[in-house]
Structure formats: structure tokens, C-alpha cells
């Protein structure tokens, strides 16, 4: 059996790989192809600039290695960054429900949920771990959007509404 996926990038203003992954997953869900899990992808860059007005929990306070992690970069930010990370993360129902539980559960999820990691540039290992944690925290917004899109599509389809 052959499954053909055609991705067309109409315009590229940064982080086109995670958007292509998200679009392909959404198209697979739209086609109704059974999958073990659904994933969402996100791009994070390591920026050198430091802004004191921005209260970011992931920014390091040391002056020697001050850095800031930025979610969803545009092409200008991709060009100026020190390093760039792309994560694909499994977003099943069980992970969304277990989000309110204790932190031990969250740490055990951490390693098992990452399906893809593509990193370019120079960075320390703790930057990579912080980026992965930030990716898992911010993936909730994207998975909620995908869920809403599929639910609204199922409501519109005539075969389901008649039954």
C-alpha cells in the first residue's frame, strides 16, 4: 500500500519544518488514517539578547551565559539566533489529563514524549533540556487548536450529524 503526502510551502517566514509537520498530521487526521498517537511540532531558538522587562522563567540570570529561549521564530529571528531546536512531541489524551498531577509524572513524560529533535548551532546540554521542557509546556496551545479543528470538521460532516 502506498500513502503519498504532498506538502506545499506557499510562503516561508520562519519555522517551516514544524508547520509542515503540523499540516501533515492534520491532513492525516482529516483523511481518517488510524495512528497510534498524534504529534505536534514546535521550533525554539536560542537568542543572545536579554530583555529585563520580559519575565521569562526559562531565561538564565547569570551574566556569563545569559540566554533566552524563543518559541515560534520568524525568519529574522532564525537568522540571528545562536542555536535552533525543532521538537516533535506526542500529544495524546492521557498526557493532557495527567498535566494537573505532580511533577514526578511530568518528568517521566519528558523523555518518552519527544519523537523528533533536530538541533543546529552551538549550545550547552542544559539549554537543550530547558528547550525541550519549554516545548512540552507550549505544545498544549497547538494540540488544542488541532483538536478543535478536527472536532469542528466532524460536526460538519453529514454522515455523523444524521446518525
Amino acid at each position, binding site marked *: *500500500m*502506498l*500513502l*503519498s*503526502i*504532498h*506538502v*506545499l*510551502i*506557499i*510562503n*516561508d*517566514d*520562519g*519555522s*517551516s*519544518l514544524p*508547520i*509542515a509537520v*503540523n*499540516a*501533515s498530521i*492534520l*491532513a*492525516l*487526521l*482529516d*483523511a*481518517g*488514517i488510524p495512528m497510534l498517537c498524534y504529534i505536534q511540532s514546535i521550533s525554539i531558538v536560542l537568542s543572545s539578547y536579554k*530583555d529585563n*522587562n*520580559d519575565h*521569562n522563567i*526559562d*531565561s538564565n540570570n547569570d551574566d556569563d551565559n545569559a540566554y*533566552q*529561549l*524563543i*518559541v*515560534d521564530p*520568524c*525568519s*529574522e*529571528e532564525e537568522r540571528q539566533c545562536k542555536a535552533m531546536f525543532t521538537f516533535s512531541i506526542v500529544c495524546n489524551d492521557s498526557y493532557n489529563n495527567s498535566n494537573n498531577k505532580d511533577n514526578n509524572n511530568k518528568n517521566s513524560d519528558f523523555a518518552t514524549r519527544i519523537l523528533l529533535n533536530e538541533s543546529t548551532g552551538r549550545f550547552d546540554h542544559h539549554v537543550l533540556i530547558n528547550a525541550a521542557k*519549554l516545548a512540552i*509546556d*507550549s505544545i498544549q*496551545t*497547538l494540540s488544542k*487548536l*488541532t483538536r*478543535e*479543528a*478536527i472536532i469542528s*470538521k466532524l460536526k*460538519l460532516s453529514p454522515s455523523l450529524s444524521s446518525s
Partner: protein
Amino acid sequence: MRGDLRLSTEFRPITVETNLISCKDGSSCVIYGKTKVISSILGPKQSKISKFERFNHLSIDVDVDLAYKNSMDNSTSSTLPTAASSANLAQGSSNSNNILMKKKIFQIY
């Protein structure tokens, strides 16, 4: 604060659509700010080429096209190739040779 006045953990405005192309089995359009990607799925179906046919296996063919001028400044990206490629995709024609920047990027992705 960033150049486009976003917070560091804030996304660009996101638009998500499904069911765009009727002749494909599944299709979606995802727009993050100025980045726009259309993805479409055909199959799973019987392959005409025998090397893709193996018992209990699914062959996946991924094709990535760029439909914009690959210049460093995004201000020169015209709407003409975009419109042409969208029309091509809507017709479902596989030979999209009149897209200006048709480029296979298997080796990158």
C-alpha cells in the same frame, strides 16, 4: 519583547483549516503569521509500482515543494507563483511544472 511585539513564549496568529481539496483524501492548511503550508494526502491505496508493495507494510512517499521565490528578502515574494500553484493543487494535477521554484528537498527534511 521581540521585533513583532510578541512575548518570548507567544505564538504568531495561527489559522488551521481542513477539507480544502475535494479530490484528495485529506488536506489541511496551516498558517502561522506569514508562513503558510498546505498539505494533502492520497491513499492508502494500491501502488502501481511493485517495489512499493510489501506484505504488512505501508510505503510513504513525502513530497515537499516550495512555491515562493527563494530570496533572502521576503518583500519581493510575488503573489503570482502562489496563485498559480494553488490553482494547480486545486486541479489535482501531478505535473506542476509551471510552479517557478519546484524543488525536491528530500535530503533536507
